[in-house]
């Protein structure tokens, strides 16, 4: 911005320091959190936690949560909640499992079908919220139970009485689309790295880490796409505007309804993607899949700097929020602490994040 227009200076404006500029970034809190948690585990945890295999170990659950958290973050910036994403993971898992096992469809049909059902349900959520003007909190709370219940009932129908549907692994064996959604990527590169001695190997010469789990790649790709959309496209501007002030946005010509319904659909699609990845990974689907994930995703988004009132936040923040989550869940097993400290830690993080976000919001909107 070396523009002549800016040569006029106001004597009351102090030069803004790097620190002050940094404070304006919504993801600052989450990055600070990552540094804090990393330091904590560097001191307390076994040193294997930060080897390549240790990192993959905590990044895998972080990625599974993170995909949901990015969807939740975008929806929160747009000013709405979705408490049904956890149940959506279970329900989409059922649809996917039923397509693959019961109907014997190939992945090229099963995956789009699962995604379409999820997007449709997301749209139903959105249309109800916007048509009635009810808080999304209560509408999606209803769907939390409806979808969870439907998953149970559906599983019993599909599996003949059990709440688990097995046989996914056999059904997708050899499907050409499977490597996109399960297993590890970059296998040959890791084998080569092991060969030249850059990464640890087992005694027989195979690398300890066979590749990057695909969910991590999905997670990173989604974070990048979401950030690009939010910061560089008109649709991103509309998301911030819809969440910031619905009336002001629609008076300025922003299609608020379309934006919000699309966001509900995107969130549901994120749930379905996690369902597809985890079901293929586990080889089965069950009714408890995604249990409590709606809260964890919202917590990750809040740690990432999203305001509960909407209109502010970032996808990169949610990315780091999810990594914090993964590090804490898995990291505690590398320490001497009781694993159940996890929940206390989580609640504490959330509280700190909310207080911090509140402070930041006051700064951004001008110390009022």
């Amino acid at each position, binding site marked *: *911005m070396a*523009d002549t*227009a*800016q040569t*006029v*200076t*106001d004597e009351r*404006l102090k030069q*803004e320091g790097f620190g002050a500029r940094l404070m*304006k970034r919504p993801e600052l809190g989450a990055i600070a959190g990552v540094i804090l948690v990393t330091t904590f585990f560097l001191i307390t945890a076994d040193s294997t936690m930060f080897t390549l295999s240790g990192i993959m170990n905590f990044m895998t659950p972080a990625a599974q949560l993170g995909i949901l958290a990015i969807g939740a973050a975008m929806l929160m910036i747009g000013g709405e909640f979705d408490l049904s994403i956890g149940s959506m993971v279970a329900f989409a898992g059922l649809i996917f499992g039923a397509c693959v096992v019961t109907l014997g469809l190939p992945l090229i049909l099963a995956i789009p079908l699962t995604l379409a059902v999820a997007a449709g349900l997301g749209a139903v959520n959105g249309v109800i919220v916007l048509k009635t003007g009810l808080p999304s909190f209560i509408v999606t709370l209803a769907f939390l139970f409806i979808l969870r219940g439907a998953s149970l009932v559906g599983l019993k129908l599909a599996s003949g009485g059990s709440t688990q549907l097995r046989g996914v692994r056999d059904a997708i064996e050899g499907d050409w689309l499977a490597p996109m959604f399960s297993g590890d990527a970059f296998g040959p590169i890791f084998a080569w790295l092991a060969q030249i001695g850059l990464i640890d190997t087992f005694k027989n010469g195979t690398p300890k880490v066979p590749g990057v789990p695909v969910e991590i790649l999905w997670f990173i790709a989604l974070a990048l796409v979401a950030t*690009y959309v939010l910061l*560089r*496209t*008109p649709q*991103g*501007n*509309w998301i*911030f*505007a819809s969440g*910031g*002030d619905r*009336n*002001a*946005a629609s*008076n*300025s*010509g*922003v299609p608020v309804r379309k934006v919000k319904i699309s966001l509900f659909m995107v969130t549901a699609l994120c749930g379905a993607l996690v369902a597809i990845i985890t079901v293929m990974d586990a080889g089965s689907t069950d009714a408890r899949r995604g249990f409590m994930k709606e809260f964890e995703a919202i917590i990750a988004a809040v740690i990432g700097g999203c*305001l509960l009132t909407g*209109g*502010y936040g970032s996808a990169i923040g949610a990315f780091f929020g999810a990594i914090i989550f993964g590090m804490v869940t898995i990291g505690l097993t590398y320490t001497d602490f009781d694993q159940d400290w996890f929940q206390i830690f989580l609640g504490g993080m959330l509280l700190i994040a909310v207080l911090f976000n509140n402070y930041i*919001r006051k700064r*951004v*909107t*001008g110390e*009022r």
Partner: protein
Amino acid sequence: MTQQMTEDTTFHHGSPQDAAKPIIEMQNIEKHFGNIIALAGVSFDVKPGECHCLLGDNGAGKSTFIKTMSGVHKPTKGAITIDGQPMNFDSPRDAMEAGIATVFQDLAMIPLMSVTRNFFMGREPLKGSKPFRRMDIEMMNQTTVEEMRKMGINLRGPDQAVGTLSGGERQTVAIARAVYFGARVLILDEPTSALGVRQTSNVLATIDRVRKQGVGVVFISHNVRHALAVGDRFTVLNRGKTLGTAQRGQITPEELQDLMAGGQEMAQLEGSLGGTV
């Protein structure tokens, strides 16, 4: 402030070309809501480069009238012409396309968003080709800083949040935005009603700048002093009717005040208050 009521104000008046044709002309507008007659025959017009003040007390019908002008309400009776052509607005969008922009009191601004994002909200300029089509952030930032500088506001940066601006500055952003997007007639709904003395004069100065660019300004107010400070013509609404339009210099503040209040009661009140209202 008293000085602003006399002829030599700090604001230089654009010479309202008396010969100029009005941009928008509204004749005998009536608006009924069921059995309530909100407007009972109001005539009003705006010429390029003038500031036409619409004065009236609360409940006089100012809001109904500007909503008719900006396409929110359809008039029950009466004619609207733009550049001499009869017009029928079906929605605010129609009015906007005809160049009638309205800055309502809530300003349609989002405090948490940057000035740039607010400025281009809903009308983001694009660059690049289809799959990678994106907002032209550089152009947006430059335009915002430049347009705001023209209005006399030096932003800390284009990413400054609107929440950090004062009420007067926000008003100016809203006006600058409307003008940038091609407003020919700018309707300002009580732009000074919630502002302090200093910010009020800033907004009045902005109105003067906009007028000099050839935009016709409709300034709605119930404050006679603010109106007299920038207005070229004055129309008073009372109980849904116009009580005539006066040129600048042909009317005193006292007369305007009386017209707004509907005459005699105000004269009595003013006597007891010592002429301070």
